[in-house]
């Protein structure tokens, strides 16, 4: 029987084989070879692509290089979304490797946030963690931590150090003995077919009668169209970290085990792939 703790490791060490190709209109001094890399599902594009940047900048002139940005099949990739979320949402039905185009010009100001430095990624990551704890514990746990604990969470993510990260993160997964779970569950549901970037609402893990709410309960409440069969029964896939958890799974368990390092459950609703 798999230990629940093994799930935490499997989630943390998930990887996506990716092929980075330079956009054809970029000006190069010689031909740019594609660059292959295993991307951590739980991290962020601009945190893990220094080598990609260096590789392509070797064949370009300084004056042709501006802020790097990434694109998949015409869609600019939001660096502030975890890599695994981007893949599940946009590319999970396509064959591997994930083919990403690299740009150094014409930054799409209307679509993407700027990422001026690693500090910006840290600020974004910590902001998400704080929001998650506001929902789970009215911010009490994260505010009680010292600055060095916050730093350890970030360094753990940045340096791919599971033990370092979870030494602190486990405190964010606790709840009072008299409760059966967190106050509210931090989650976001993403669909490419809607206008809104995501759905986020207040949702309790435990019902008034003490029953644990399930993933199905959450979807029926906040996104019923996602699981109701339409068009003569074409169902969607409900995906987290590349898998489809059973809808009967308790939401509290999902929050404790399948959250991303930012402590949010990032859930993708995607059309069933055509076999």
């Amino acid at each position, binding site marked *: 029987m798999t230990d629940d703790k093994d799930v935490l490791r499997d989630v943390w060490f998930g990887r996506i084989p990716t092929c980075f190709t330079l956009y054809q209109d970029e000006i190069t001094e010689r031909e740019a070879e594609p660059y292959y890399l295993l991307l951590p599902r739980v991290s962020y594009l601009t945190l893990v692509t220094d080598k990609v940047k260096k590789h392509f900048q070797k064949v370009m002139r300084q004056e042709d290089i501006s802020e790097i940005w990434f694109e998949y099949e015409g869609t600019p990739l939001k660096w*502030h979304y975890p890599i695994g979320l981007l893949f599940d949402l946009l590319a999970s039905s396509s064959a591997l490797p994930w083919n990403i185009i690299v740009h150094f010009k014409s930054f799409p100001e*209307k679509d993407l946030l*700027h990422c001026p430095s690693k500090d910006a990624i840290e600020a974004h990551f910590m*902001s998400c963690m704080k*929001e998650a704890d506001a*929902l789970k514990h009215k911010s009490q746990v994260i505010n009680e931590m010292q600055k060095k604990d916050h730093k350890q969470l970030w360094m753990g993510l940045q340096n791919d150090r599971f033990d370092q990260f979870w030494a602190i993160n486990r405190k964010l997964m606790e709840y009072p003995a008299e409760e059966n779970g967190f106050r509210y569950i931090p989650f976001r549901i993403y669909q490419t077919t809607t206008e809104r*970037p995501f759905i*986020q609402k207040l949702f309790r893990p435990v019902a008034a009668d003490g029953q644990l709410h399930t993933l199905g309960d959450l979807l029926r409440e906040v996104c019923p169209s996602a699981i109701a069969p339409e068009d003569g029964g074409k169902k969607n896939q409900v995906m987290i970290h590349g898998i489809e958890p059973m809808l009967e799974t308790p939401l509290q368990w999902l929050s404790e085990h399948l959250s991303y390092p930012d402590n949010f459950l990032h859930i993708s609703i995607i059309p069933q792939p055509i076999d």
Partner: protein
Amino acid sequence: FQEALDLPSDDLEVIETQAASEVVKYEYHVLYSCSYQVPVLYFRASFLDGRPLTLQDIWNGVHESYKTRPLQGPWDTITQQEHPILGQPFFVLHPCKTTEFMAPVLKNSQKINRTVNYITSWLSIVGPAVGLNLPLSYAKATSRDE
């Protein structure tokens, strides 16, 4: 997040640049954060040709008195974030200190027995730091002496 109020600036704001005057269009959105249970101010600005202003440009347009304590006080941090409904980049005033600085406002209004419109009061505090000066008519319209 829910859209509580969408406040497009009713006037085009003119700012001076080194070479010539340029017209800048500011856009402010008031949203409600259910995570923090407070309002949050989202904003962006662009020149008429669509070129966006950077955070530095916006900061340069802010009144001197708000600059002396940059990024301190009730407006805490300004960062670029994705608008949760439009999905586009906006600048955001971080909401974590809101409850803290609104508390004395609410307490005082109770003491002098006067109703206060939370949004109007909150916006009159944070707005000026990012170029939004709420006309007095808002306050007159939304509060009254008991």
